[in-house]
């Protein structure tokens, strides 16, 4: 390995991970698209940059699969926004995806762990 990771460069989402993260961001409470962006960037300590060009299509895909549902509501600071919430199906998917992701990370870690 000659390339060294550049810590200032923010991380790109791997395929399919954005959907899982959206589900996770809605686990505690419904939220709107801007709020989801904020949540993800904050939670990842600004490691992730959320591109709206990926976020909006991902939301549409989740809606179609019936994993989330949407509703226009008024936000606490009196602005109207479209809120997304997890459906029971989405909740089950989140559990499954979380455990799958843990296994993946553990496996990656074992493989990448320095020898000895």
């Amino acid at each position: 390995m000659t390339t060294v990771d550049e810590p200032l460069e923010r991380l790109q989402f791997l395929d399919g991970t954005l959907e899982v993260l959206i589900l996770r961001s809605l686990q505690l409470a419904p939220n709107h698209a801007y709020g989801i962006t904020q949540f993800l960037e904050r939670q990842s300590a600004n490691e992730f940059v959320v591109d709206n060009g990926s976020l909006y299509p991902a939301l549409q895909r989740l809606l179609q699969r019936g994993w989330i549902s949407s509703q226009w509501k008024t936000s606490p600071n009196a602005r109207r926004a479209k809120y997304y919430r997890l459906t029971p199906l989405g909740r089950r998917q989140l559990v499954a995806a979380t455990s799958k992701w843990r296994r993946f990370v553990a496996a990656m870690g074992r493989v990448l762990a320095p020898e000895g």
Partner: protein
Amino acid sequence: MRAWWSRLCRTLAGRQALADDLAAEIEAHLDLAAAESSDVGMSPAAARDAARRRFGNVTLIRERAREAWGFPALDALGRDLRLGLRGIRAAPGFSCVVILTLALGIGATTAIFSVVHAVLLAPLPYPDAERLVWLEEATPQAEGISVTWVNYLHWRRENHSFAEMAGFEAMHLTLTGRGEPLLTRAGAVTSGFLRLVGMRPAGGRLLDDRDEQAGAPAAAVLGHRFWLEKLGGDPAIVGATLVLDGKPYQVVGVAARDPGLFRKPIDYYLPLAPFRTATLDRARHGSMRVLGRLRPGVTLAAARADLDLVLRRLARIDPGPEDQHHAFAAFLAPHLTREIRPTLLVLMSAVGLVLLIATANVASLVLARSTTRVKEMAVRTAIGAGRAHLVRQLLTENLLLAALGGASGVLLARWGLLFLTGMGPAEVPRLAETRLDSPVLLFAGALTSLTGLLVGLVPLWTSGKLDLVSALKDGSRLSPGAAGGVGGAGAIGAIGAIGGRCGTSLRSALVVSEIALTLVLAFASGLLLRSLIAAQTLDPGFRAQRVLALELVLPPSRYASPPVARGFYQRLEEDLRALPGVTAVSAVLCPPAAGDCNDSFYAVLDRPAPAPGELPVAAVNFADPSYFGTMGIALRRGRAFTAADRAGAPCVVIVNETFARKWWPGEGGGAVGRGIQLGGPALDGPRCEIVGVAGDVSQLGLDAEPLPEIDLPFAPSESAARVVMVRTAGDPEPLVPAVRHRVAMLDRSLAIESLRPLAQSLAATLARRRFGTLLLTLFAGLAMTLAGVGVYGLLSYWVSAREESIAIRVALGAPRGAILRWVGGQALALAAAGTALGAAASWAASRWAESLVFGVSPRSLSTMAMAVAAVIGIAILAALVPARRAARLNPVQRLRRLGQ
């Protein structure tokens, strides 16, 4: 499944509502983000702008999100098609030229391909047609020799290569007892023939083995057309009797269709065996040809060797004059089309070149247009079109243009096909069956997609990176024609839009190749035109005008004995001579340009005897003593025939100049007085003295070199078939009824084979050449027009891109002439490069044309010079308009515009 279902529901249920919802959601998103920014002290407007910048390309994101709802590919296609149509309508002139150019190229190619498909490619309509083989006899010198009955019987019995074999031969029989006597064409066939060609009876039965047995009642199967047209489609015809050459035949059936293997349509089929069973002579030839179907897995070479083995065995046990004969075998389809094939292949190549030129032209036009669309593309990119998106949309637009061109081309092809089948030479097999059927339409579709892709991809080929800012600025500052050209280093359109040197040099290359291809076509059509002119104007060796040719075949039933036939012709000729307006009458066996009529082996008596396999062959003709005078054939040496050259007198012959030159080159009168002997390899024919040398008359057609020929007076050998030449003082056509009447007065039941002016039948021998030449010339003209348009388009663009520099030159005092020369020089440079390339290509390809060229060298320099002159002329003509525009440019106005 579930996702798909919900997607479908959403797609159907108000996409507009969804789109509005999405737009509102994004607005809300921006509001929230802006509100947060203004919370930290930004002005509301600045906060809003910051939010928008952070958000990204709104249109693009909206579109990507929308793609998740429906069937994006289908959606995008619909949108691209709509945009494409809009693009086409936005430039009607450009679109019309492109569609017309493609329609001409694709239409011409499709029309010619439909003929090639029907005549050369489509399988013959016989069962297992790919295994059908045409069989004949051949010697080391000659091919096309008929198969003797005895050889056929042995072939059929002893071969191991053929599943089935059948002989067939055309005969002329006179039908009597049903109104006017009718000369009919019988297909005399062995029983396997109708099975081999897969014939079905439309009524009754076909011929079978029973009909070939000795003593079986004479049976006939009617051809469908003959039954309908000559016998009124009488349904009760089966079982009726036809009297043919005085012999009754019982009609046993009607055939569903004509298999079309005979040179001319056949009226009915008869069993061949009864005409032949008396023959035991292995060297006794009729005109029978043999058709065989190979067993699966047997190669043509193996079958040929198999038949040769049979012939060699026969030569051992039954030696005869034809022991050198071997078998000729060729697959049926290529054999039937061997004469028209070179013409069609040359036409197909020519039309392919026309299509290439058309494609190059369109590509050049599209390139030119894309330089004017830099601004449009920049705007599209600025408002959110991705690069892939623009590529797809431009490709769709070009494919749509190509599709419109292709559809118009197919319409043109339909029309062209009527013309092709209408004026094509009659002897081309299956020409009348040419259709725009599914394989042809598939071909047209493939051509269309290919040209569309090529044309659509050309502008992408050199596409660089789009510099939005400079493209937008340049686009707004410059006249549209010059947008790409003067736009500076970076102003190269993202997609489709290329400008500057790159596009222009690509267009120049396209135009140069157009000119090169055009020169190839012009040169080829020049060669063919000169060949046609040569064939039509070369002295044919006789005076063809004002001669009626009356062709008769006396039925053997009543004219079996030679004196009877001779008496008939003598009386007929006397009667015709007595007609007012007739100046001379003579009969001949083979009229000029009659084709393969009669030939014989011979030997020159004072030369060493050739080996048995190497006997020379000459055309042999029989003529009245007065024939040479009547036809105006020059007698170069010696004397003509006289009335004294009759049966019983010493045999005398007249040879043609080609014959005399072949044996006595350089000696003017060397031939006269020499002796020759005629006859097969055994040279059992008469020994004759050469008494004269006549001028050459081509035997095979006006566009064929003459063969060595030996002419004999009619007396020594009688023939029931003759052509009576009637020379008239004026136009021969009005004498036709009188001649017909004289024939009927002598023999009421004699049918006339043909009666028409000789010039007409001579012209017919050039039908194929005229057909090919006309089409090739048409294509060359098309190519020149297209190349002219190409040069015009390129130079117009070149001039508009250089208006500034022209204006500056004029302002600095350059004379108009210099400007004209400058533009003209560009045209000449293009033309010179193109013609040099084209000349080299023509030279390399001229070998191909060899078989079609007559009376002119396939590398004729003068023809090349004419073609080059024509092409350069076209280029100069095409340059004239842009050159004049350049010369008349008002420098003051143009430069003032620059300053704005």
